[in-house]
């Protein structure tokens, strides 16, 4: 296998030992993301306090890229302010949609870098992140309307 393999150790570690995976009952907001073309289905749940993502968790099924990316996401977004979490999501999305080095990928997400060469799998890597973005939207909408 070449050095360009997407199956690097960090990614494999997240796949084999997913962080923050399982029950979402205690979460404030849960959103589902699915990719019917490959049968990937991920649910992402968040618990916020005072504009900070206290906990980010996920559950679901999918390919190794999808699950490892979800696990990495929970690890690196837990504890961030909502605004910072949005920036991280935007950074990853921009990095995948660009082909040059105009956007620098956040170093915590470096293990996802080789996936950019495989357009068919970018969707897998982004699935959980898109669900997270939706939980943030929903959480903020709710705060604006004043409902708990």
């Amino acid at each position, binding site marked *: *296998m*070449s050095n360009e*393999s*997407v*199956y690097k150790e960090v990614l*494999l570690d997240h*796949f*084999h030992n997913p962080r923050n995976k399982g029950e979402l009952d205690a979460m404030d907001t849960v959103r589902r993301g699915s990719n*019917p*073309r*490959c*049968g990937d289905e991920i649910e992402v749940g968040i618990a916020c306090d005072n504009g900070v993502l206290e906990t980010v968790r996920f559950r679901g099924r*999918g*390919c*190794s*890229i*999808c699950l490892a990316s979800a696990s990495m996401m929970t690890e690196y977004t837990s504890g961030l302010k909502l605004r910072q979490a949005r920036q991280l999501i935007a950074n990853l999305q921009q990095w995948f949609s660009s082909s040059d080095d105009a956007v620098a990928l956040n170093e915590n997400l470096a293990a996802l870098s080789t996936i950019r060469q*495989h357009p068919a*799998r970018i969707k*897998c890597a982004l699935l959980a992140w898109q669900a997270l973005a939706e939980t943030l939207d929903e959480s903020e909408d709710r705060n604006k309307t004043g409902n708990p």
Partner: protein
Amino acid sequence: MVDFAALRADFPIFATGQQPLHYLDSAASAQKPACVIESISQCYNHDYGPVHRGLYPLAESASEHYEASRRTIAHFINAARPEQIVFTRSATESINLVAQGWAAQYLQPGDEIWVSQMEHHSNFLPWQRVCRKRDARLRIIPLDGEGLIDLEKSKGLFGKKSRLIAVTQVSNVLGTINPIREIIAGAKQRNIPVLVDAAQSVGHMPVDVQDLDCDFLVASAHKMCGPTGIGFLYGKSDRLAETEPLLLGGGMVDEVDIASSSWAEIPARFEAGSPNLAGAVGFATAANYLHGIGLPVIEQRVKDLALLTYEHLSSVGGIQLYGPGPGLDRSGILSFNVDGIHPHDIAHIAAEHGVAIRAGHHCCQPLMQHLGVSSTARASFNLYNNERDIAALLAAILDAKRILGHR
């Protein structure tokens, strides 16, 4: 004794393309022999002109090359007359032509169109839509545990309401070879037309439309070592006469008047727009190439390779194989899943080994529902494959198990 190594050398991609290349995705699209590529190049370099539109020598020879290609394809599937071959863009377009140009005219509320559970979306969606539009019912021929069509559980298939049976000859997922002959024999007794989706059979095994006695049969060039962008619809002459053209425009009319117009003869009336000359020439060259090797030879070779792969995969453990089991006839298409590993990961790791396989639902979501999975990995064979390709596939699967299997 056929020299398959020499035949592999007919395909330039194995020498000039990305190396190593273990191409096991021929059911998606087959590779092209040099003769096909050269015939297209020859067409554009020396023989190119408009088809059926000019009176000068180049236009006349272009028309002749186009019609000669039609005769070659007619001969290839033993159609009685070349006019029974309508060139289309694809097998998909051919099916849509029958659904919208033929079925939509005759279907009444309560009528039934039958398809099998294993159909490709292209032999499913056109019927689903025409049935919805006409208040007709789309009925499903179920499958048994081996992935074989279960005719005994298809009550009404040959019943009074059945207006058309559209079924694939070879499953693009399971490799099942369907009992087309039996279905057509039953349908004939009730005068029910049958459409055969032959996308995975024409060019892979002998197909004789007169012997089958089907009403319609569709296939595409690119799955049988021909170019992309061209396929055909075969129809019995009376069925084609009952079919309305879908595309109106140049080349498909006799007389055009402000008030009304009359269609050109068949097949021209179904081929509006400038024809795909180079595609037709390449298609005919592919047919001649395969005919030269011998369809029974190709069929046996591909079956042997698939069977060998089946046996190897069965012995690995932790691999779920779909479709007909040992002792049952199957084509050169093999779908499988590896326990605990997503098919996309299998295909990706295979790619890192230079092995090209497909992973996904293969445009067969109703079949995936039957199998209870969202996707499978699929290896499919053609005449240029060999035992080294199988060994590379096995090595890739073992590697995937090592990387992603339970630790």
